[in-house]
């Protein structure tokens, strides 16, 4: 177990390094110099000179990459083309709204997928299963922006139950209830695709477990169906499903870009679109780098949880 963990951590290091190399190469393709982007545009002329010499703009590309990486590791992601503010700060301001949205969506998708997938599996090939499967496919196939627009049309414009966008009412009291009121629709829209995929996964994982001998034994000794399903089968069926949370990160972040755009949600996704429209490459780079690191760490987390929650797994 410890050897596995150590090895898994060691694999993550070259992946993270590879992510930075690839990021640097992409950044080199953009107009402007990646190292130049690290220099505060608001500094005095003398400071600019010193920084330029420090960072060595004329070094070979490998040397410049190493210097760039050194700065990035110290938290200097460069300065925004459009506002001149440090990229780390611009992104930092947007992290919390995105985190709120994605985590709520993740929790929501599990809250729907686990019971629905479980029921679909225990009543395989009945109308319950067919309806659940169809709805799951619908969730996977609905374009996020169309679902979002339809949600706004129905719940905000027609029924007037929910606000059309934003995180709180302008000039409101900024209370928790108001924030939740604004969160419902975007989080549900973002959760839809993940919930569909997860439901399919819970169902197939559950079916696999239900066919095993120990489940038959539990039935044979006269345990109530409910107990067999919940206490014996579900627990084991959920092992691979729980670890999927880490693997959901890329889909959630991509979905957040569109959801935030549709709902005018001031998070990293909306910042991405702003940065693209303004050709603000340092900001775009910062977002790409940070999301890639998140995804790599998510994968690591998924593997570790897997080995922790399932002691049967041996990696030798």
């Amino acid at each position: 177990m410890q050897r596995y963990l150590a090895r898994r951590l060691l694999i993550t290091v070259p992946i993270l390094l590879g992510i930075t190399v690839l990021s640097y190469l992409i950044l080199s393709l953009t107009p402007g110099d990646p190292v130049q982007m690290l220099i505060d545009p608001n500094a005095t002329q003398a400071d600019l000179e010193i920084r330029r010499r420090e960072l060595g703009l004329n070094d070979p590309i490998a040397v410049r990459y190493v210097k760039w990486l050194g700065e990035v590791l110290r938290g200097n992601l460069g300065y925004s083309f459009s506002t001149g503010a440090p990229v780390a700060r611009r992104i930092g301001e947007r992290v919390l709204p995105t985190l709120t949205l994605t985590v709520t969506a993740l929790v929501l998708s599990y809250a729907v997928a686990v019971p629905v997938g479980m029921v679909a599996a225990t009543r395989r090939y009945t109308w319950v299963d067919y309806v659940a499967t169809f709805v799951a496919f619908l969730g996977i196939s609905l374009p996020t922006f169309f679902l979002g627009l339809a949600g706004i049309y129905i719940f905000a414009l027609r029924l007037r139950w929910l606000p059309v966008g934003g995180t709180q009412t302008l000039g409101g009291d900024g209370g928790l209830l108001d924030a939740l009121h604004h969160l419902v629709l975007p989080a549900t829209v973002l959760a839809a695709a993940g919930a569909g995929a997860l439901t399919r996964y819970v169902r197939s994982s559950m079916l696999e477990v239900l066919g095993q001998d120990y489940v038959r034994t539990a039935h044979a000794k006269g345990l109530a169906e409910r107990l067999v399903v919940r206490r014996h089968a579900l627990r084991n069926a959920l092992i691979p499903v729980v670890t999927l949370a880490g693997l959901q990160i890329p889909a959630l972040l991509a979905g957040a870009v569109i959801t935030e755009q549709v709902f005018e949600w001031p998070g990293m996704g909306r910042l991405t679109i702003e940065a693209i429209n303004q050709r603000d490459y340092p900001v775009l780079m910062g977002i790409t780098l940070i999301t890639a690191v998140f995804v790599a760490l998510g994968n690591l987390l998924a593997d570790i949880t897997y080995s922790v929650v399932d002691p049967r797994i041996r990696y030798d």
Partner: protein
Amino acid sequence: MTSAISAAVTTRGARLDRPQSYWTLAARRFLRHRVAVAGLAVLAAIAAMAVLAGVLAPHNPTAIDATAFRAAPSAVHPLGTDSVGRDVLSRLVYASRVSLSVGLLAVTMYVVIGTAVGAAAAYHGGTVDLVLSRLMDIVLSFPPLIIILFAVSVFGRPSLWNVILVLGLLGWPPVARLVRGQVLALRQQEFVHAARAMGAGDVRLILRHLLPNAMAPVLVAATFGTANAILIEAALSFLGLGVQPPTPSWGNMLTDAQSLTVLEQMPWLWVPPGFMILLSVLVINFVGDGLRDALDPSLKL
């Protein structure tokens, strides 16, 4: 096996069942999956619509009717007109070409790359495998939509071909992983050793013996991948970073609906294209589901 023999014995004298190939059996299993068959039929209809767009569309999709901007559905324009005065139904019909070509071309591209990389990694093993596998991990770490947004903004004006190229060049790692796993498992099988003993070279071994046997899950992944590529193209075009007007795409037809006026008062502008995206992605996913059940039910895709 036993049942096949006993069946042959009991039917002695009667018609002997000819041995059936894997693909015949798979086709039979697929045809039993009613939802998948229905999906395939709808998909064929959408493809026919794309091919026959010139005949089916009542108007030129880019022609502007100066007498009707954002006009409600009428006899002349069955689904109304858009903000510039173009016929929505004609644009809807022509846009199927964009979605299907993005799906087909991008996925073909990354299946070819992914198959080559995966086969190379598994066949050569050792350092080659290590390097290629880490490369897959690295590329997989970048959320596709975000890296595509970046690429589209770097490589100049967004267009249909940029979207296809970027999707095709970035989509290969999952396919490579799949092929690698399959080839690793197949490499140890006896028919491969036998082929090698008979003097088959690397290329022949890979192309003739390993890849054909590894292709079933790739076909399933490619089908789901096509649905996904259509969704990504639609999202990019919706954001204004994919196919550019006046060329119609279901995604860019929804761009106008970001204005609340259009959203609230002109549903004919955004409901039909949204529905078409949903329909085509849904039926392709159904076909993928049927293929998975028919080819390899143990696959988790």
